[in-house]
Structure formats: C-alpha cells, structure tokens
C-alpha cells in the first residue's frame, strides 16, 4: 500500500479514528492494521513476515541466559537466511556462475526465470530484527513482553515498508505507554504537516522529474557529458525527495498516533564531507551500520589502516544492503573510499595546522559544492542499469569529450539548480520551523490559512487521483 495512494489515505483515516475512539484497544488496532497493510502487498509474504517475526521472538526468549550465544546465532540465521534467499540468492548464483564460467540449470524449479519477488521491507525488518537480537543478547534491551507487542514494534505500518529503522530501546517503551497517549492538537497538526510535506515532495517534485531520469538512464550509453550530469543531478534530487517524502510521511503518521519515529534526513546535500553526509542521509541506516558493523569491526579504536578498511567495509556492506547488484556494491565501496579519504585528509590538515580552515565559510561553501558533486557521481553507480552504462556516464562527466548544451539540457540544469535552492529553503524551514510555524499560526488569519489548506488539499487530491500512484524507490530494497 503506497503512502501516496488514496487507498492508504483512507486506511490511515480509519486507523486514526479507531485509535482515538478505542484507546484501550490501541495495540490491537495497530496489530491488525499492520497485518492488513502488509497482507495488502501479498498474503504469502505476510505469512512469511509473521513467521520470521514469531521465530525471532521465540528465539529471543533464550537470549540473556546460558544459551544466549546459541540463541543469537539461531536468530541471526533465521533473519539472514530469509534475507539472503529472497534478496541475494539469484545474485550470488549469477556471480558464482560468472566466476566459474558455467550455468546451473533451474529448469523444473520455481526459479526458472531467475527472479524472486522481494517481500516489501525485507531489508528494513531484517536489520531491525538483527538490532533487537544483538541488543537483547548484550543486555542493552529487555526482551519484548509478548509476541503481540513485538509484532506491533517490528511491523508498524508507518515504517515497515522502508524505515526508519526503529530500535527497541526507543520504541518499545512508547508502545508500553500507548494507552496513555492523548489527542494533542499541535502534535496532530504537526503530523499532518509532515504528511503533507511528504505528499507535496512526491507528487510535485518526484513525479515530475522521474520521467526524465528514466528516459536519460534508459539510454545511458548514448549520453554525452552534459546529459550525463543532467541525468545524475536529477536522480540525486529524485532519490532524495522520494525517500525523504516517504520518511517524513512515516514520521507524520507516527505523530498522528502520538509515537515518535526518527527523522531519516536532514538536508544531506548541504554536507561538506562524507561523515556529515552520513549523519544527514538515511540516518537510521547509517546509525545501524555504525553500531552493528563499523563498531564491532573495531570502529575507530584500532590502527589507522584498520579504520580505513573498516570504513570501506561498512560502506560496502551498506551498498550491498541496498540491492543485489555490483553497481550497489561499487556505490557503497565508493562512499567507503570517500569516507576513508576524508579521514586521511582531515589528519593531513591537522598535521599541517590548517584545521581553522574548516571554520571558514568560503571553505565550507566550496567543500559543500565539491562533496555534493562527489555524491552525484556516486549516484551514477546506484542508478545505472549496468556497470557499462555507469562507466560510460562517468567518463562523459569528465567533459573531456566536449560540452554541448541543448534547450532541454539547459532547462533541466536550471531545474536542478532550482531543486538545490529548494533544498536550501528546506534547510532554513527546518532551522526556523518553530518560529515560522508560530508566525504562520499567530500572524495569518484562520480564514487565509484555511483557504491555503483547502487549496493544497484540492490540488493534492486531484494529483493523487491522476492514474496509479508510483512506488517509492526504497520500496525496492
């Protein structure tokens, strides 16, 4: 069920009404809503999801005891086996075949077309389950009290499809207090504002630029330098606005229900270096990678060369998490190398006593511009349909083959610049949100506010009813 579909909005309305009409039954309302939300995508996958959740819950009962390690291993096997089978098995098979130079026949098996439909949100719920198992094993988190509670935590419809990746320590206490949650107008208004923001991003920005991105990447092998930059810029904004739209709607839904879900984005294209970028882009995944991969690998408490290796390894795993393809792995590796290089660069600056430079605003602007373009180059690997396409585009982006503009590329470059400006506006809106929202409510008469809300609702409704809603990019992960 897509957040930008009329069906979901009606579903949300029904859940919202039941949730506040029957406060004592909130857990039940959410449990059923989560099941319905997931089953909508496919009953088979819902059954699988539930079985995985129930198995992990059962196994987690042995965590913390004398057989904790065994239970942790068993739990991780269940989660990873499910993830690997659905997401990586065909990729692994293909890679092995390529390496060994032969083809394994799948004739007579259900996988004859070498495709396995990916259950929605499998990567997200798998990471959430892993975090839960590890945290309970380490004694950082008390196990969930019941399967019912555990199910609501893992499967909450606001985040089950594409995050944010919730941690038991943050979320389980909220569920335990769910009956006491009161209907608070400012919070509900804020929730609606987040949902609206997400819808506006999806409908007005993503839907408009997606056809150009698809068209350009569809003929990637024929693009010249300027066209390659245009395609990459547009994809950079498509993926940001698409994923942040979904994440903000998830936060908004949480607020409607009085539950706090973590923000996943903080205007990431204003980052001046990789470390900052990963604190502002897909934050809950970055934190997960840090806590469950980078730190267990030794984190920053090991020798310098090991830190670089750890950074590259963690980011490569993050790339693999996104998708079963070499382009994703290269994308993650590329970001790992950027992170390592930046760390090296920081050390160099320190050695030369130039650390003050980083405080200079001109340097900061320059660093943001450079890092934004490095990020855009990285997106080529992420989006390209093949390794060959990605290499062709990167080569073209050096502009060594010449620079030629057409009316369309000029227009699309202007649109890209406009989108970056919008990104800055978003940064300011978040920074001054309290002041601006207060000003909006206090200084603008209710009549005018009402007219603006109604106009937005009408336009959105018309656009939402315009054909089938398009999926969010991260639903594919």
């Amino acid at each position, binding site marked *: 069920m897509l957040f930008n579909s009329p*069906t979901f909005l009606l579903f949300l309305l029904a859940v919202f009404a039941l949730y506040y009409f029957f406060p004592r039954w909130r857990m039940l309302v959410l449990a059923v809503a989560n099941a319905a939300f997931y089953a909508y995508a496919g009953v088979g996958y819902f059954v699988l999801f539930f079985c995985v959740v129930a198995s992990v819950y059962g196994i987690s009962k042995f965590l913390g005891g004398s057989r904790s390690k065994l239970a942790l291993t068993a739990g991780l096997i269940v989660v990873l086996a499910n993830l690997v089978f659905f997401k990586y098995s065909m990729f692994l098979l293909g890679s092995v075949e390529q390496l060994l130079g032969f083809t394994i026949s799948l004739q007579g098996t259900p996988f004859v077309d070498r495709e396995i439909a990916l259950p929605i949100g499998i990567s997200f719920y798998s990471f959430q389950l892993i975090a839960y198992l590890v945290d309970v094993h380490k004694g950082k988190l008390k196990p969930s009290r019941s399967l019912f509670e555990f199910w609501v935590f893992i499967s909450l419809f606001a985040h089950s499809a594409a995050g944010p990746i919730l941690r038991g320590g943050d979320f389980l206490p909220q569920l335990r207090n769910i009956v006491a949650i009161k209907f608070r*107008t400012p919070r509900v208004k804020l929730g609606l504002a987040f949902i609206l923001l997400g819808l506006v991003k999806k409908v007005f920005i993503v839907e408009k630029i997606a056809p150009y991105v698809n068209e350009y990447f569809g003929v990637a092998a024929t693009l010249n330098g300027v066209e390659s930059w245009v395609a990459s810029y547009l994809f950079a904004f498509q993926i940001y606005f698409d994923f942040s739209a979904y994440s903000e709607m998830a936060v908004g839904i949480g607020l409607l229900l009085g539950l706090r879900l973590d923000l996943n984005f903080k205007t990431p294209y204003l980052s001046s270096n990789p470390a900052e970028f990963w604190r502002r882009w897909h934050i809950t995944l970055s934190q997960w990678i840090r806590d469950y991969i980078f730190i267990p690998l030794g984190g920053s408490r090991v020798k310098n060369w090991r830190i670089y290796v750890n950074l590259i390894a963690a980011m490569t795993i993050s790339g693999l998490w996104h998708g079963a393809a070499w382009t994703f792995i290269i994308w993650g590796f590329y970001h790992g190398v950027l992170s390592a290089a930046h760390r090296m660069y920081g050390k160099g600056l320190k050695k030369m006593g130039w650390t003050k430079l980083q405080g200079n605003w001109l340097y900061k602007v320059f660093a943001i511009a450079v890092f934004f373009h490095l990020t855009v180059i990285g997106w080529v690997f992420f989006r390209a349909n093949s390794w060959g396409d990605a290499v062709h585009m990167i080569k073209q982006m050096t502009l060594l083959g010449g620079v030629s503009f057409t009316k369309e590329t000029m227009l699309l470059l202007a649109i890209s610049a406009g989108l970056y400006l919008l990104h800055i506006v978003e940064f300011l809106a978040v920074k001054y949100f309290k002041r601006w929202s207060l000003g909006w409510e206090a200084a603008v008469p209710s009549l005018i506010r009402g007219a603006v809300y109604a106009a937005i609702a009408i336009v959105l409704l018309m656009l939402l009813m315009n054909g089938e809603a398009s999926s969010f990019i991260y639903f594919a992960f």
Partner: protein
Amino acid sequence: MKLSQIRRKRYGLLGLAFALAFFVAAQFVVTAYVKLDTVYKHRMNYNMFLEDRGMIEVVIEEMAKTIKRDGLTDYAILIGNSVAWGTNESSEHSLGRYLSDLATSAEGEDKLQAVFNLSAPSIMAGDAYTLLLMMEDRGIKTDNVMIGLSYSAFVEPKPGPRQVFWLGDYLRTQDPKAFADVLPHLQANGFEYKEGWKHAEEQALETLLHRIPVVKYKEVIPAYWEQRKAGTDLLGDPRAWNEKQFSEKWLADPSYLSFFDPQPFDMSESNWGVYFMNKIAELQQGKRLLTFVSGGNGELSKKEVTNPGYVANTEAIETYLQGLGSPYLIMQDKIDPNLFTDHVHLTKEGNELLARFVWDTWTGKGE
C-alpha cells in the same frame, strides 16, 4: 502576543475548520461551473476523453441534465468513430454540427430538437452498445439512434483494435454476460482485466472519490481551459488529402492495410462487430435505428477499395445490415475523393455531404 493567545492558536482548530468549509464550497463552485458546453460542442472533447475515459460519464450526465432542463423530448443520438466525430476538422465543421443543423431546421414530423453526438475516434460497435446502455441508465431516451461504423469494424483483429475499444470496464457492469463473452477477445488485444481485491478496491475508490466534484471534474476543467486557450478544437490537418503528402511507407503500413483487410468476413456472431450490432438492434427493437458505414477514399486508397475481397466484404456488410431491417447507408464511393482529408476522414464539405446523406436516409428521402 501573549502566551495564552499563542497556546490558543496552537491548540485551535479554526484554520482546519475553515479549510473544511472552503473545501466543501469548492465542490459547489466546481459543480456549478461545469456545463454541457464545458465538455461538449457538437462532439465531446476528445483530449479530455483521452486523459480519462471516465469523463464519458460526465458528458452523459451533462446531456441528461440539459435534456431535463430544456424539456427535450425529440432528439437523436449519434454514436460513431472518428469519421462521425470529425477528425481533421473542427467541431464547427463536423458531422455532428451539420446533422444537428439539418435536424433542428427540418420542418414537420422530421424535425428534431437536438442531435447529441457521442462519437469518438476508435469507437467500435461494442462501445456504441455500451454507451446506449449507459444513456438508458441515465434516463436519456434512445428512441432515435444513428450508428456510424467503418469497414474496419468488421475486420477480424489478429490482433487489432478491440471491439469494445474504450468502454470495456463499463460494459462489465452494464452487461456482464456480453462482457464475459467478449472478454477473451478483449484480453487478447490489450485489455487490462482486473479481478478480486484489486477490482473491488478500484470500484470502491471510483464510487467514493468520484462523488467528490473536484476529483470528478479534474480532467474536465483543465482540458476545457486548454481548448479555450488554443482557440480551436481542431484535431489534425483539415486540408484535402491531395494537398498533402502520403508516403509509400504510410500506405504500406500494416495498420493502414488492416483497415481495408480484404480477407473474407465471417458475418456470424463470432465476428464481434456483428455480435454487438445484433445487441444494438435488439436494444433498438421498437425504436429507430440507422447505421451508416463510412467509405474509403476512392483515389488515395483505390488499390484497397477496389480489391475484390474488399468489395465482397462491403456487400456482405450490406447484406447483413439489410437483414437487421432498419435503415442503413453504405458510403463507399458516395463521396467524391476530393472531399477526403486522408484515406477515410472528410473535409468540411465532405462532412456536410455525409450529414445530408445520413439525414435523407433517416427521413426516408434518400435512396
């Protein structure tokens, strides 16, 4: 501003209440804005129909309102394909306009108060049948019906145009039995058949959300404004065919050739053109029905229209229409080739002449 005032503002729901009031008011405004001439002028706005085929409901609804408001009792319904719609000409020079002029200016018993033209490019006999059922549902009398088809309406698709080209989903609710019969043919020719939960969901959303006027008219108003901005509703090039270039490649195109397919027609009910024409004839029992079959350009498409197979098939269509017992008109070679804009569509003068032929046949003054 005092803290208490700020608090009141933050907790207040006045803004949302006004939003709700504005939203409701907008529905009334939009409903009042849309009239028959927003969606129809001697023919329906095809661009609007292309954007959302559900707009046919709006056209029928507005027609029903006009009929009721103006107390119309004697009117005719014209349903046909692009020839009857008037491709390559504006609505002012379309068959609908000329037929309407003839019908409303006629004297005595023949006079009609209006001719409503529900034609659209690619409309097939199955669409025409569905439209008649939809109009009856809306309380529009189908006492006087004129159906415009072309030779290609009886060509066996292999694959080809669906015999319910646009309105399959409506046929599904209007006549489930006919829909079930034709479904394999529709599916074989690109019709997306939804069933189970997906279908139920779509139906529920349609029923619920299309009651909201801003959703219902979401394509209507922009298309109307667009047309007004363009200053014309002309679709295509109105010049006569001999003032234009038709390449050999165009004349060898499979879609062009299939239009005149000379393979012998099976004129039994396994031909979907026949199946739906029979349905229409059955529906029109005791009411008036006229069928005209437009002809191909005798010069541009000479090779095709003189093909013995084409000639024999045209005769088969004539024999079939004769069997229906209602007036009919086979237009092949009745209109001068110079009055064609391409292989089948007509110039302004061609449309005027076609209207005269149809009207004379309708009134019994023709051949």
